[in-house]
């Protein structure tokens, strides 16, 4: 229960395709609001200072760091999280991450998939170097990245050959 003096703001936005309305402390980050108020725990807080990328979400279609956006800034926006992230790129990436063991503990994976999907939307056949460049703001401490790059390259190939069913 919040104390009466905590400043709050009204938020009305679309989250994963549904209209939601609520209040959030002014100082609460978007990722914390999504996690605690909406129970969307798929976006993770790895550093809370904008370096690790585990909190990536889509805000009006753009991938952003959920720990660097305040919840109130999402007012009037469309938010999409890993739980409901749509598009053929995400579907292909999910399959490929599993098949190539592009994850171990999985904590970075939601952010990694959203970030990689953004690349594949722009660049259907990225080189391994381009994949590494695009993912360089997302830390993974488990895999050493090689099998993540394998997964993204494989997802790109699957999308190119039409072998993925869109979400």
């Amino acid at each position, binding site marked *: *229960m*919040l*104390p009466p*003096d*905590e400043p709050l703001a009204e938020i009305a936005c679309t989250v994963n395709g549904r209209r939601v309305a609520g209040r959030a*402390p002014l*100082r*609460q980050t978007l990722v914390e609001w999504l*996690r*605690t108020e909406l129970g*969307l*725990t*798929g*976006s*993770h*807080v*790895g*550093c*809370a*200072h904008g*370096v*690790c990328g*585990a909190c990536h979400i889509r805000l009006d279609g753009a991938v952003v760091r959920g720990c660097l956006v305040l919840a109130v800034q999402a007012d009037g926006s469309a938010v999409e*999280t*890993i*739980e409901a*992230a749509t598009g053929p790129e995400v579907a292909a*990436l*999910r399959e490929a*991450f*599993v*098949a*190539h*063991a592009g*994850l*171990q*503990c*999985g*904590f*970075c*994976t*939601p952010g990694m*998939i959203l970030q990689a999907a953004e690349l594949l939307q722009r660049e259907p056949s990225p080189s*391994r170097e381009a*994949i*590494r*460049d695009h*993912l*360089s703001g*997302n*830390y*993974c*401490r*488990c*895999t*050493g*990245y*090689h*099998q993540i*790059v394998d997964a993204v390259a494989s997802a790109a190939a699957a999308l190119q050959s039409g072998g993925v069913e869109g979400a």
Partner: protein
Amino acid sequence: MTASAIGRAMPRPEARRLVAGGGRYLDDHAERGELQACFLRSPLPHARFALDVAAAKTLPGVEAVLTASDLAAVCRPWRTESRSFPGLVSPRQAPLAEGRATWQGEPVAMVLAATRAIAEDAAEAILAEWEELPAVTAPEAALVPGAPPVHPGSETNRAWGATIGGGDPDAAFAAAALVVEERLVFTRHTGVPLEPRGALATWEPGTGALTVRLSHQMPHQMRLHLAEQLGLPVNRVRVICSDVGGGFGIKMHVYQDEMAVAAAARLLGRPVRWVSDRMEALLADIHAREHVVTARMAVDAEGRILGFDLHDLQGLGAYSVYPRSSTVEAISVVRSIGAPYRFAHGRARVDSVLQNKVATGQYRAVGAPVGCAVTERLVDKAARARGEDPLAFRARNLLRTAEMPWVNPFGAAQHGMDHHAVLETAKALIDLPALQAEIEAGRAAGRLLGLGLAFTVEYTASGPAVYGAGHVAVAATDTVVATLEPTGEISAQASITEIGQGITQGLAQVLADAVGVAPEAVRVGAGDTQAAPHGGGAWASRGAAIGGEAAWGAGRALRAQLLEAAGALLQAAPDSLDIREGVVTDAAGAARMTLAELGTLMLFRGHEMPKGVTPGLSATFHYRREQDVTLANNGLQAALVEIDGETGLVRVLRHWMVGDCGRVLNPLLVDGQYRGGVAQGIGEALLEACRYDAESGQFLSGTLADYLLPMATDIPDIALAHVEVPYAGSAVGAKGAGESGTCGAPAAILNAVNDALLAAGGGVVTELPIHPVAVLRALGRLA
């Protein structure tokens, strides 16, 4: 005959949940009515303090502000002791420091409030008077006469020391044709699992039961310590580790803050949650591998290694980590010295010193990266002094399988390893002639290229004697309970824990083969002390080598039970029956009944079972390895690096690893372990450092902008090859795989950088991580 599940590259079913955003880590759980905790931590490395919490307590939304005396009412202090380290100096610790903080980041007060933000506001509102005391941070300063004591009243900052060795090192060095020497400095770094540590504790009034969710590698160990410190019967304490977002050794210790959360829940009767933020994590998670090693190696006229003589100065921090003791890392350094090679004489002097810093502890590969880097640097130096190819020098000195079992002068035992097979496999993997031509051509064009090699030996899957001999309560035996479901599936619980390495999938594959079912029909759970049997959890790369044996034993025992029951039903001798792909067959493979039919009969239509047939649906196997204190694995790593002569930055262009972890349960998962380990080793070599200001002792690496983790662009593709020499002393034959990547990468990078520097007519670098300034100085391009 059906295909073996062991050895199959199978994706993990659990991964599907994680890619969907369905992971359930510590912070994804909540209890109704919970309080959010935060800690006031010492801003100084050493200080006396007095706290006035009255104002903080009155802030709206604050439930309580606790200090040491509050928690002392419900929580006993603890002290690190081990018969393996007699005389170890490590004072008692309590959840919160009382009156004096001995390291920057030590928790001194705890706020419980409606939100974390309010708790942090209140922590700032605590009126704290700090009286700064002299501090020791650099290990070299700790033993200087007149150094301020880390703990007032102690005569020395030497927490522990010993001389270890054998043979006649003085005679060996006197007789040597060549002696090479180096002083190598290893800077502290830390594990940085992406999910931070934390705790969510719930106290059940009336019964006095405590449930604690942790992000931890060893739930049963923590259950024991929580019960002990809080004075509870151990069977009233439940620890649950659900999805764990990486561990790497960081999450295997008893931390003051986690204990404080449990104590506060008990004291207040409310659920209490605390999750470390990243700045706290960098400051207060254990650090590792702070060593200054001065080492020399004696070589005879034929280029044979005679022996090693070294001094290892190890920084422990303010306490030796509980319960395992930080000194284990120095022992791990010593037994890694010279490990792949034949030598008869050795002497290692160890001084483990106290400092006003957070404790160091067992981080992935423990002391092996240090011992490997020291050894491989000396080996390179000797080869160069002899004008010899570094690989040829190594090949001459590598132990041969026929010489094993081999125990070297440092007491390190090796058995059944084939270093020469690793060497041959690596030659094929790397294509050395082509690579050397590429390096020559690059150098001719002015590029600063270097190739570095490192042979590794790492002691994994520690047996009962490793901690047992010290009377430290660390389980090195493990148990699996396997159960046939009435639907024909197998469910199991393991005392090994899952921290992202995928071991529950590996154990499922072992169980599948042991029982005779498809691996898809097996699910293994772990991490909840109320469901999983007591055992060691995740440490020392033991999941496959120890957990795998427990799984095999449980699976075979269950199979025998099921065949006995089926035999009674089918009026056939059990040994005339088999179980294949979930079907009980006769010897010729003809189906007699499915396991689903058998399980249904046993569970729901027991009255149809013949009288006197007693086997049940569950089987338990407790695995305890009686021989071989540890299982050594081995490998070779190679790195090709390029130095930017303008900036001094080092780029790893290519990296190779050949590893032998015995029987590979699942190559997809082992490859991931190897590569992830290598990446951490590259970080250790080039980026990662917990730095403290030399004057003030202030921690300087408190954010991920200051503490540099390897990014995707820092790590090259890592080429792998496997040599598979199964451990002969077990049923499955696995040895540890999880840490060997980290073991050899720093040495390979160090040697590669020095190869590039020497080829350019420069000096060498001798400090990890390799700083661009040191590179430029070695090149003579910076004063």
